[in-house]
């Protein structure tokens, strides 16, 4: 792993009609990094990664990228026009990569048996895996994922984050992803950036949940549930559920007592 940044944002700003949607964001992604962007709805998460992808013009600041970088992008949805017939095979081959590489990528995401199926017949979760496979087939230096866990059940999500980590290890690529599922993010990520137009706070998952800015953005109960989660890795989800829902003082003290 080198220390050289694949992508570096300095005070990057994107405005829509003079309203800053992404405000002075600094971000550095190196090989091997997994960086997760979290934040409330409308926080500018998708706009930020689109700027990184080069498909959203920036209004200020700078964005520098290692030349010749291969980017793998996993968009939020694959909404295919029903009038356009296409098979998984054809969709994968449109990446311009050889069939062997496409099959390997499909095998990694666990849908190689669907090679000859029509994309229209895939479920939401399978489409998500297809998009990921397509990005992997390109052997990216930088993998950018916009809510990759959407439509994937809870076990699948854990497997998905495991997969993302193993891809990072295999390809030694950098990873930026947006996620809503805080618990899994905290378990799977190296670094979290909490975005609400500007970067509220950033750091290691275990530290960030104590950050006052994080608590202000997501609320005390969420922050506490995450803190608890990190101190009790082996507990079942039921218990977490209990702690999350406990908003009365007794529970709060209870969870603080674990620290």
């Amino acid at each position: 792993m080198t220390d050289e940044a694949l992508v570096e944002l300095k005070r990057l700003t994107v405005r829509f009609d003079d309203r800053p949607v992404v405000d002075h964001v600094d971000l550095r992604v190196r090989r091997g990094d997994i960086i997760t962007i979290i934040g409330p709805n409308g926080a500018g998460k998708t706009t930020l990664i689109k700027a990184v992808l080069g498909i959203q013009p920036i209004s200020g600041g700078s964005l520098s990228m290692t030349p010749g970088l291969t980017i793998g992008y996993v968009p939020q949805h694959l909404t295919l026009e029903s009038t356009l017939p296409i098979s998984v095979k054809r969709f994968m081959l449109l990446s311009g990569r050889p069939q062997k590489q496409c099959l390997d990528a499909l095998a990694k995401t666990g849908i190689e048996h669907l090679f000859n199926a029509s994309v229209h017949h895939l479920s939401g979760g399978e489409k998500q895996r297809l998009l990921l496979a397509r990005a992997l087939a390109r052997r990216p230096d930088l993998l950018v994922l916009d809510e990759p866990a959407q439509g994937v059940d809870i076990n699948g999500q854990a497997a998905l984050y495991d997969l993302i980590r193993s891809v990072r290890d295999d390809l030694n690529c950098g990873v930026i992803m947006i996620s809503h599922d805080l618990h899994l993010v905290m378990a799977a990520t190296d670094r979290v950036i909490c975005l609400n137009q500007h970067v509220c706070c950033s750091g290691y998952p275990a530290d960030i949940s104590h950050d006052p800015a994080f608590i202000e953005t997501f609320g005390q109960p969420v922050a506490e549930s995450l803190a608890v989660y990190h101190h009790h890795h082996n507990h079942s989800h039921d218990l977490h559920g209990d702690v999350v829902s406990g908003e009365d003082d007794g529970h709060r003290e209870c969870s603080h007592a674990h620290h």
Partner: protein
Amino acid sequence: MPIIDAVLGDFFWRALIGGLGVALVAGPLGCFVVWRRMAYFGDTLAHSALLGIALSFLISVPVNLGVIITCVVLAVALVLFSRSKTLATDTLLGILAHSALAIGLVTLSFMPDIRVDLTGLLFGDLLAMSRRDLLWIYGGAALILGLLTVLWRGLLMSTIHEELARVEGVPVERLRLALMLMFSIVIAVAMKIVGVLLITALLIIPAATARRLAHNPEHMVGLAIVFGFVAVSGGLTLSWHLDTPAGPSVVVTAFSVFLLIYGSARQAQS
């Protein structure tokens, strides 16, 4: 070659050969119209063809060239206007389609020296196909097929997922322009046979018919060409024997094939 001369000397064969040339490019372009939901857009461009004809007479350039240029200018204006998002795209298209047609008709009426066969322009004319038109059609078809072959992967990718295509380095905007140029060419050369009001039908009906049976984009394009051939040869034969207008006869045939395929195909959509 006496045989070729005999064939090209016969107006019916000229119309048929020209019509097949148009169907050859209407197939793939029609697929893009269907995939990218551009039916109304195509209609607007076709309507503006009449304005192109009027302008060609005004500044004395070849009619085909005038139509192509007018269509390209309008297409670019449409793309730029629709980006500003002050009006919904269908409203904008509705305004421009009918305004372009009306301005074309008004302009033509100001030129009493020029006699144009309006019915022929609007609905197509079997008798109007000249050898020069055949050259335009096959020249245009060769250009379009060449462009489509070279640009195929990028065009398809930007149709499936525009942002993904952009990230992968596909020049989405330039391809959009290329597609506009190809539409303009096909309108200019198809005008004589099916008429400006019915060109969109020749683009979308064979493509929509093909969708029912196709498994892959290229498969759909091939079938759309076949259905276009059927529509043109059936329609022109009908027009020849029953003395019906050429354009509507082609469209009626295309529509009959559409009904037949959708009525009989039991195959699940893929």
